[in-house]
């Protein structure tokens, strides 16, 4: 938190769906009245953030993420809950504010509108959303449902049409393998319509940075051109993330997938070709651990023979780099594990298409056709 400022939140207050703006104004007014020194309340707002969530045991985690997101990226938040419990049939609305105490008054970071729809009223959510987006500001849709966007139907598309970018996360999908396939095809087909970002992709950034640094042709001549095999080991529920890492490597290094053999629950052995060479890549699931990549073994051949560098998660948010057959001792670098809220707020600042991500998905799409 910057400058020791503390973010405070109003408890959600029930509001009439037809009077949301009026109620929000009242909330703002009450902050003015709390001030004794005549200072004005200022409102900071950089974006609209629409969040869609399922009503399930994880839905409260999203609520806890919101203050952290708006503290970094002030936004009007519209939190939509589908298939939720309401006291009466239809939709229910709650409003709240997240604000910060400064010496010179209150700084309102964000207004939050929560809309809960029962199972018959999900189709009403877009109309409430549309009426309360702040004009002249970009809009982000953060899709947190366990249903990947392509399986979500009309509701997703209506919300997506209001948005400048869509953020999704493959962690937690009910069927990640199927979801990944559907998603890669869907992104390929829709990328001219929507700007799409994955939190899994952002989580991989420390890995992408580190691999690009350590395997740089200047640091390790021949490590990229002379690669002979690669092994990626990942924890449970991280197949999508590991596939994304492999898709990125393959797309950047112009590897073409030729076949893949799946040993369910254990590993997949892929074969790629690059400049007439075969490159086997094993993606192996470890029996336990965090849902993330754990180790990457990179083997290559140069004039002095077979070389290997291993990147391994060491715990305490660190990655170790070990060069086998070399005098260089193990180097350890920090690899901060960003919280989900940090990933979302960081992603909201990038609103253009990420072609490298899209190309990684294209390769994954090609991989699914040869398996």
């Amino acid at each position, binding site marked *: 938190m910057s400058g020791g400022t503390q973010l405070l939140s109003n408890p959600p207050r029930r509001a009439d769906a037809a009077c949301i703006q009026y109620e929000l104004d009242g909330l703002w007014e009450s902050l003015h009245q709390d001030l004794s020194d005549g200072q004005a309340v200022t409102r900071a707002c950089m974006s609209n953030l629409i969040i869609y969530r399922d009503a399930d045991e994880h839905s409260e985690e999203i609520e806890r993420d919101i203050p952290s997101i708006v503290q970094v990226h002030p936004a009007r938040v519209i939190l939509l809950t589908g298939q939720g419990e309401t006291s009466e049939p239809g939709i229910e609305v709650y409003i709240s504010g997240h604000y910060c105490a400064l010496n010179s008054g209150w700084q309102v970071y964000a207004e939050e509108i929560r809309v809960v729809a029962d199972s018959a009223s999900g189709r009403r959510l877009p109309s409430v959303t549309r009426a309360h987006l702040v004009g002249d500001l970009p809009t982000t849709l953060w899709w947190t449902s366990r249903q990947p966007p392509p399986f979500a139907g009309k509701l997703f598309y209506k919300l997506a049409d209001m948005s400048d970018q869509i953020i999704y996360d493959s962690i937690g999908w009910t069927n990640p393998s199927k979801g990944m396939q559907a998603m890669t095809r869907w992104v390929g087909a829709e990328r001219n319509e929507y700007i799409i970002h994955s939190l899994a992709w952002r989580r991989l950034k420390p890995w992408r940075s580190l691999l690009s640094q350590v395997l740089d042709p200047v*640091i390790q001549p021949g490590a990229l051109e002379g690669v002979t095999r690669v092994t990626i080991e990942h924890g449970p529920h991280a197949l999508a993330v590991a596939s994304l890492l492999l898709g990125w490597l393959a797309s950047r290094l112009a590897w073409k997938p030729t076949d893949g053999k799946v040993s369910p629950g254990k590993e997949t052995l892929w074969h790629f070709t690059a400049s007439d060479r075969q490159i086997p890549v094993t993606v192996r699931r470890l029996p336990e651990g965090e849902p993330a990549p754990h180790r990457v073994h990179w083997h290559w051949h140069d004039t002095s023979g077979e070389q290997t560098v291993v990147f391994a998660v060491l715990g305490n948010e660190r990655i170790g780099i070990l060069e086998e057959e070399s*005098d260089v001792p193990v180097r350890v670098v920090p690899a901060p594990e960003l919280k989900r809220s940090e990933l979302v707020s960081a992603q909201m600042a990038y609103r253009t298409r990420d072609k490298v991500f899209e190309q990684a998905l294209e390769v994954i799409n090609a991989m699914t056709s040869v398996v």
Partner: protein
Amino acid sequence: MSDSASHNPLRTGLEEAQVAQPCTLVIFGGGGDLSRRKLLPAIYNQVIDGALPANFAVLGVAREELDDASYREFAREGIERFSRQSLDPRHWPDFERVLHFEQGAFDDADTYARLKKRLEEIEPAFGIPGNRVFYLAIPPALIETCVQHLNAAGLVQPVGVDVPFSRIIVEKPIGRDLQSARQVNNILGSNFDESQIFRIDHYLGKETVQNILAMRFGNSIFEPLWNAKHIDHVQITVAEEEGVGTRAGYYDRAGALRDMVQNHILQLLTLIAMEPPWAMKADVIRDHRQDVLNCMRPITPDTIDSSVVRAQYGPGFHHGEDVPGYRRESGVAQDSTTETYVALKVYVDNWRWAGVPFYIRTGKRMPKRVSEIAVYFKSVPPILFNADADHPLEPNVLALNIQPNEGLSLRIATKLPGPKVRIYPVKMDFRYGSTFGDQSPEAYERLLLDVMAGDATLFMRRDTVEASWMFIEDILESWGSSHTRWLPEYSAGTWGPLEADRLIESKRRKWRLL
């Protein structure tokens, strides 16, 4: 390696504005205050944020009798006290391993021979391909010795494709007048290529200073008004709360004009006054900044009295406590005529700024620490709401706050609610710290990263340093020939002498109350 390193397809699309290259950072004066307070904490923060390469090491060089272990302790103490992010015990053991120390005198050739040997041990151990950044955190008088020994020891690689890079960072002040600045630049230039030299001015690494370009050229509403037709005047204030403190030895030879105006303030002025650059490239931006310096109207003996005010702080109060006047400070001569305050009225004689005065003031022992640039727009015509000549409307002011509260504010006129037409000024405020919850990196963090990436945009080129000295030299010469035995005084804890008020007071202009 060199800036034109071999193509690495894995780098494509990574978001960093620039990628720091693997290197060893050699800090001459590594056991000093700058290193402890700024450089080592900056390096620590960058490592923790994952901005520095895995193949990276630090080697401190200094006279202090330290070794690797005690240097790591020295760094730890500095990081615990001064770092933006608190020291994380999980990462400390890995971090401290990159820190090394070599004891030696800067004028002893053996020091450089040992330094070379040490680098040859460190580089393979960290997988560093011979790239070296030499940071001279040393007194200006030692620059020549240090640079010549570095070259003589074979530690400076010429610029080339696919060869390791050698870069050197030099702290201000570069010289104490035009002649000595040229001498320093000649020494640097005869041992390093200009592209290898990074003259650091930490003001240029501040977020708000960088935001000047974004504000001017990323918005369409300011630039059409950014000229003599719409702007009445500009005020640049860099106020320091502290007195001369422990820097009396240096400061009494320098003074406010050399210490602040020649570097920080003229750099701020160039960013405010420059023409739109045609690309975000280091030399394009530096060319445009240089153009402003080239257009600055010289201050001659004929105009100095109406353009410059210098003064010294006398005794007064600092937060209610008695503080001595400058001449009573420890280490300051009782008959010193060094200015602790200077105010200037300067002009940029080009089409855009013709006739617009830039008022500059900087001083020590002022009421608070604040740096700000305020752009005063011209008043609306004296009709309608501005028809009452006795109560003219306040003009619009765009203020860019550099420190401590980085941000900007805009003063506009608005109607007070009610049946009567009453116009009142209101201020719209934007603060980085409270709008973006993220902590901004410290200036040194950004600038060190830029050097490792080879981006010189925020550093001063040789011609810039010399042009700013040329402008200052006219004033120094006039002062030198005046043989003044005393300077006007202002009480410590006030905004400067009355003479400075007279400099600006005309056409309803006055210094801003900050």
